[in-house]
């Protein structure tokens, strides 16, 4: 297990470094001079030169990269050009919306998908299975931001059960959770549809295995067989998708925040884009990619716990 962990850690570090190089190069190579982008094409040459020096753009690319990455490691995400405050501060303010929203949606998605997938698998070929599969097809086809708008129309505008958007802050945890509920549902539903389908097909696959038949022949009840053997073995594909879902939900949260006017990381990134505050975009994207890569790593470790054969 230790050897496995070490190998995975080395590969994690390599992926992170490669990802940071890619992000850096995308930002550096794409045409358009950041100083000109910020000041506009009519700016004076000496102001441009001063800004370039301030942004560190007069250094070579490797120097710029090392300065950026060295800062990131120490928690220095650069300084926002428009806000004149450290990017880390901006991110810290907003992560307390995006992260809880993502986790809330992940919890909802799992809570819906597991029972639905299990029911569909046990009712295989029946009317219930057919109905569930039809509903999940629909769920996959619905764009989450449109679903969010429909939720706002029904539950906020028409019924008045929820606010249409905004965030009251965490001082009142209940109000905060309430404000995140519609966004979380909008994010979770399409993902729950995918997860339920994966759960169903993974279960069906294991239910066909010989050892399941043996367990049944030995007199184990249907339920006992399901819990003790089938579910455990169906977890590998389900975990894979769950890990992927974190990345989809995190990216999706960025979009959904727009529908509900939530001041999270997504709003920060889009403001960064419109205001040409490139370091904000660059560092926030790096943080999100970092989160996704680390979650994938943790999922890999979880496999090894579930299936000892993978530790080798």
């Amino acid at each position, binding site marked *: 297990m230790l050897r496995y962990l070490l190998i995975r850690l080395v590969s994690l570090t390599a992926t992170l470094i490669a*990802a940071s190089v890619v992000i850096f190069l995308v930002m550096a190579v794409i045409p358009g001079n950041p100083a000109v982008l910020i000041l506009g094409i009519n700016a004076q040459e000496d102001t441009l030169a001063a800004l370039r020096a301030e942004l560190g753009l007069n250094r070579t690319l490797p120097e710029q990269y090392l300065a950026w990455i060295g800062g990131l490691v120490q928690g220095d995400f650069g300084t926002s050009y428009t806000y004149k405050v450290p990017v880390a501060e901006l991110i810290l303010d907003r992560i307390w919306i995006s992260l809880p929203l993502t986790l809330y949606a992940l919890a909802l998605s799992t809570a819906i998908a597991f029972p639905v997938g299990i029911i569909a698998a046990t009712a295989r070929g029946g009317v219930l299975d057919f109905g569930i599969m039809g509903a999940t*097809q629909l769920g996959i086809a619905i764009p989450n931001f449109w679903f969010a708008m429909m939720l706002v129309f029904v539950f906020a505008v028409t019924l008045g059960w929820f606010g249409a958007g905004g965030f009251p802050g965490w001082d009142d945890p209940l109000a905060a959770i309430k404000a995140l509920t519609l966004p979380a549902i909008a994010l979770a539903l399409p993902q729950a549809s995918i997860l339920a389908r994966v759960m169903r097909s993974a279960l069906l696959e294991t239910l066909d295995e010989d050892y399941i038949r043996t367990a049944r022949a030995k007199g184990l009840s249907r339920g006992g067989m399901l819990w003790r053997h089938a579910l455990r073995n169906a977890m590998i594909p389900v975990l894979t998708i769950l890990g992927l879902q974190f990345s989809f939900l995190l990216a999706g949260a960025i979009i959904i925040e727009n529908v509900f006017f939530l001041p999270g990381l997504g709003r920060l990134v889009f403001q960064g884009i419109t205001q040409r505050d490139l370091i904000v975009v660059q560092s926030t994207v790096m943080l999100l990619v970092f989160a996704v890569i680390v979650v994938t790593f943790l999922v890999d470790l979880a496999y090894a716990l579930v299936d000892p054969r993978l530790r080798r």
Partner: protein
Amino acid sequence: MRVPFALALGGIVSLVFVAMAGLSYLWTPYDAEALSIANRLKPPSAEHWFGTDHFGRDIFSMIMVGARTSIAVAVASVGIGMGLGVPLGLWAAARRGSWLDEVIMRGNDLVFAFPSLLIAIMIAALAGPSVMNAILAIGIFNIPVFARLTRGGALSLWQREFVMAARVAGKGAARISAEHILPNLANLLIVQGTIQFSVGILVEAALSYVGIGAQPPTPSWGRMLAEAQTMVSFAPHMALFPGLAIVLTVLGLNLMGDGLRDLLDPRGRERTA
């Protein structure tokens, strides 16, 4: 051969949308760009089937024209993904276990690690928002999807007798890949292509919705939804119909993909049935 129900239904729905996009070049009920302040925010009626927007434009006509953008982005991004991903996958499979295979597959893993939306956002941030950049961003993320699929399929084909026979006959790896491997992967690629097509439509809508895809005056379902957002409380039809267009198209394509898989790969029928 019986055509699966899902394929027939999905095929018909998808065809309707392609036909609508095609028809929009010749005819739309109204000019999709014509402003008519007198007719603004009209609910659905006999004159305006899906109602009008805040500028008095006919929403049905706009959806017809918007279908072009969705289809163009999806076709182009699947084209990029297949055009680069399939050769890379074939190449990696032909050189299985070599450093080249390793480089290609690790590169794929890296692209997979990025949420596609984030890269699209970054590209838009720097190169400016446009349909072209949306196509590039979605296309780049289709490359590893097709590369992996192709490599996986090709690896097992390389073990088959007819490929060995071709090798004995003195054919090179490139020729074998083109003449024997690729044709046998066609089914797999068509099914995945259909699915990526629907993913492309969803991502394009999302990008245009947040303002980094299609720009005015290019009509787009995602942008229609963005404009509808502030008016949901008094003109819900503005948001309802473009959204339904997306849902139906994506649903149709997904059903078609499932149906095609059942038709082309009878072994998989058990599981998806």
